[in-house]
């Protein structure tokens, strides 16, 4: 709890001596990820424009990197790593399940509405 922190990230690949050191380590990691995101967003490499599962590979990379960042913010800055399994699951699984469900429903519906416009039944409605 409060005073003990798990001091390793990347499945124990990187071990830190103190909690303060771990915080700076995570900051460096998050900064690198953000720089990669911005660089990809500005240069938009042609090779990543191909579609994969209905979305550009570039966009998949952005979303995955975002989830990676969210993981480290929650686990190390919010100390989720040090909470009990029960609390962790209550918070994370509930949120993830509901959010995935919501996203699926709304994007499916949005895509359908687009099809209806696109097939010419309705020209424009805003």
């Amino acid at each position, binding site marked *: 709890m409060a005073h003990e922190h798990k001091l390793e990230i990347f499945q124990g690949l990187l071990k830190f001596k103190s909690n303060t050191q771990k915080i700076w380590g995570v900051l460096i990691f998050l900064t690198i990820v953000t*720089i990669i995101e*911005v660089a990809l967003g500005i240069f938009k490499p042609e090779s990543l424009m191909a579609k994969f599962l209905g979305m550009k590979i570039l966009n998949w990379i952005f979303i995955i990197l975002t989830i990676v960042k969210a993981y480290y913010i929650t686990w190390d800055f919010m100390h989720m790593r040090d909470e*009990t399994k*029960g609390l962790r699951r209550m*918070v994370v699984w509930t949120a993830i399940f509901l959010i995935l469900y919501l996203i699926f429903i709304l994007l499916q519906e*949005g895509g359908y509405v*687009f099809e209806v*416009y696109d097939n010419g039944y309705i020209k424009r409605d805003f």
Partner: protein
Amino acid sequence: MSTAVAEGKTWGGGNQPLKASYGKMMMWFFIVSDALTFSGFLAAYGFSRFKFIDAWPIADEVFTHFPFLHGVDAPMYYVAFMTFVLIMSSVTMVLAVDAGHHMNKSKVTIYMFLTIIGGLIFVGSQAWEWNTFIKGDYGAVQTKGGNILQFVDKEGHRIAVRDFAMNAHGERVQHERKNGLWFVNEGALPTYTMDEVIHGLQANKDILVRTQIINEEGEKTVLSREESINQIMKNGRLYVEGANLHVNEYGSPLFADFFFFITGFHGFHVFSGVVINIIIFFNVVLGTYERRGSYEMVEKVGLYWHFVDLVWVFVFTFFYLV
């Protein structure tokens, strides 16, 4: 019998089955519900975007400004800077929490102060971002059907309407309450009338019209010269500049609506976070937690502050990158 006893011991109160205090646990549950609110907004944004997937504004053509660098095309840099500021203030916050565990009052004070400064820089940057977005820069023409037509030169570079619109004869006077029907008035007139835009377009042979439709290369479609004039003459209805809840020179008005609503709601969270941090900061300075023997309060507001950062990471991805 024995299970009942064990149950009473574990769940009957006065115990911490999740090894987290009441306050911290409730902060976690608040965060879950707030996360659902934000994902509701972002999913609604996704819905509208999927609905107009072939005509949605491209974010790095919209947010291209950087303070003090006028006329420099700097897509995304400023938002990246804002993201970094917020992550940095998250770091100072977690350092404050860590110092609190060691009961180090002076360090907690310094780190809380830095966190507040980071929050203020972020809110200020957001205000600047809003201001730039509302003012707009090139101007565009809205059609009868609500679509946006923008202007480009032969190479596809954007051209501002103010650079080619020409003074046409006749002046459209704003109708005020003091003349005519006293109870009727109208809003501010657009900077240019459609006549002025059409005259300017006819006089400048190099100007083409760009529509909202995204072509196969992922760029907005540029019309031919005749098609351009035809579109403006036939469908152009209103000159628009900047973005608000009704019109948006960058494309679909929904884009502006969601931008104001989601970043506004997030900015409101940052603002309340700063206010709460200031309250806690003064409590730290006054030694409230020193007397209480625990800096857990700092930890709880810390959770909220990190959550605000977490939300921004997602807003950044879905509004500016994807």
